[in-house]
């Protein structure tokens, strides 16, 4: 065999974290000054969906599991947070925690059943179970059926900061979203994240190395559900209502669209995808032109012309230029 000398000091270093830190600093700076030019409510909506898509991407992009039922976690958490604020009159942070807890429980149940199957069957099971949850929400008395839960005060964060003030709310949602994105970044770039990637790349091989992949998949599923729940709770807090739209299958479809549009398996992709989708929705909402046609066309262009997604194509172009 080769006589290469093993010199650990001379080993090429892992890719440095500097670009990621620069990106993070730019993101934080942009978020701080964005409300000067951009309508804060639009920004907040965008942030909620960016976090939702990033949570979804943790599962699709980094574990290779396509869930078609993420609306259950997003909407379930939104309902419970809204209910907690309206009926239990708790502070917003407690309501958000209640929402996340709901998403975790739903994630455990749906995940434990779905990970027994792979590929399209996995997707169909998640869809079926989330539709069951949709009908539960339609029937359950506390969700108020078609009306949804609405008309509650956002209250004071930790009993101190009034979130009914738009700028307070903006900085709170921006901070929580950044923390959520950082959590995803950490999970992806961790020893655990490496095993998730290994499962994505070659599941039988990962099993043959002694990993009980079902446990890793379930853990990833629950983490993704929890973060989707956080996004749903933030959305309920922002719009002060939770309705059936949040748990319907369209919502599961939208988050897939955002992730594919931005680029699966990239950190910035879901954020960009969410920005494009929410931006288009907002722009065409007032135009009278049916927004679904625009979204459909956007998706087709994406699939036909840049299959890696916006960020994926950009990263690929930069790589190839470097090479």
């Amino acid at each position, binding site marked *: *065999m080769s006589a290469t000398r093993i010199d650990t000091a001379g080993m090429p270093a892992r890719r440095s974290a500097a670009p990621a830190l620069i990106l993070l600093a730019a993101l934080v700076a942009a978020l701080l000054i964005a409300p000067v030019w951009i309508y804060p409510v639009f920004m907040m909506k965008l942030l909620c969906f960016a976090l939702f898509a990033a949570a979804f991407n943790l599962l699709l992009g980094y574990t290779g599991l396509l869930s078609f039922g993420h609306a259950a976690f997003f909407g379930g958490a939104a309902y419970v947070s809204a209910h907690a604020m309206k009926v239990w009159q708790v502070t917003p942070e407690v309501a958000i925690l209640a929402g996340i807890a709901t998403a975790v429980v739903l994630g455990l149940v749906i995940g434990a059943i779905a990970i027994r199957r792979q590929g399209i069957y996995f997707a169909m099971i998640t869809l079926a179970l989330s539709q069951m949850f949709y009908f539960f929400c339609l029937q359950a008395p506390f969700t108020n059926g078609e009306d949804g839960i609405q008309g509650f005060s956002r209250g004071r964060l930790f009993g101190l900061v009034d979130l009914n003030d738009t700028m307070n709310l903006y900085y709170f949602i921006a901070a929580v979203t950044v923390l959520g994105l950082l959590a995803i970044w950490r999970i992806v770039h961790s020893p655990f994240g490496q095993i998730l990637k290994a499962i994505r790349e070659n599941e039988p091989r990962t099993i043959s*190395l002694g990993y009980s992949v079902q446990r890793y998949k379930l853990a990833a599923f629950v983490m993704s559900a929890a973060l989707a729940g956080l996004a749903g709770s933030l959305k309920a807090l922002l719009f002060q209502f939770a309705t059936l739209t949040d748990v319907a299958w369209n919502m599961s479809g939208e988050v897939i669209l955002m992730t594919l549009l931005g680029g699966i398996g990239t950190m910035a992709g879901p954020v960009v995808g969410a920005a494009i989708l929410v931006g288009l929705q907002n722009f065409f909402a007032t135009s009278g032109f049916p927004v679904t046609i625009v979204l459909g066309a956007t998706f087709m262009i994406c699939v036909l012309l840049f299959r890696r997604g916006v960020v994926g194509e950009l990263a690929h172009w930069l790589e190839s230029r470097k090479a």
Partner: protein
Amino acid sequence: MTTHPAAVRSDAGASRAVLSARGLTKRFGPFLAVNNVDIDIHHGRVHALIGPNGAGKSTVFNLLTKFYTPTAGRIVLDGTDITAMDPARVARMGMVRSFQISATFGDMSLLDNVCIALQRPNHLSVQFWRPLSSLDRLRPRAMELLDRVGLADMAQRRAADLSYGRKRALEIATTLALEPRVLLLDEPLAGMGHEDVENMASLISTVARDCALLMVEHNLRVVADIGDEITVLQRGEVLARGDYATVSTDPRVREAYMGSEDGGH
């Protein structure tokens, strides 16, 4: 935990049988793929499983590694009955397999490929809160393993970009990271060029000094070279077993297999 009587008997031989199967049978519906196969894999020896296409070699291989559940029969690893265990647990007990189609983590570097295997025994696989730098302490060992298979100078390359022969070598390095007691290789030389075959064959015989090794292989020249024990399968049953000289002179084997192939490939 039970010890199979037959396994004990084989222990009385020159070396210890680490892995033993008795009466191994697998049905797929009405089709009897493997029928009543007995096999013993010994420490420090290369055991080759050969036979014509469709003889049931890969099925036996998947049964031994628990990727298939046997319809009947028992499998004992180091005195422990593993017949009902799941494949991940069997792997944790030290029995590691390779795959017919080379199994690497394509979008990861060679170094990361080997680190994946090192993470579990080093208890670094569930920490989702720790940075990737916590895996740095595995890297010297991973580099050693890559060096052992001649891939140290391309540690940062993507596994998907490797040539076929090098992917197989990477797979061996990944497997060795687990310090297996039993190593099962599914056609390790298939599709390799002449030079790669020689390198891999010498690697296999070196590796077999420290573990029990079973390989399914078509290349009879290599089997003759490095195989200490050979089991010939035909239509799911054991046709002959023994060293290469014994097996290759067996008239039934000559008729069923080698007659047509003339002992070479």
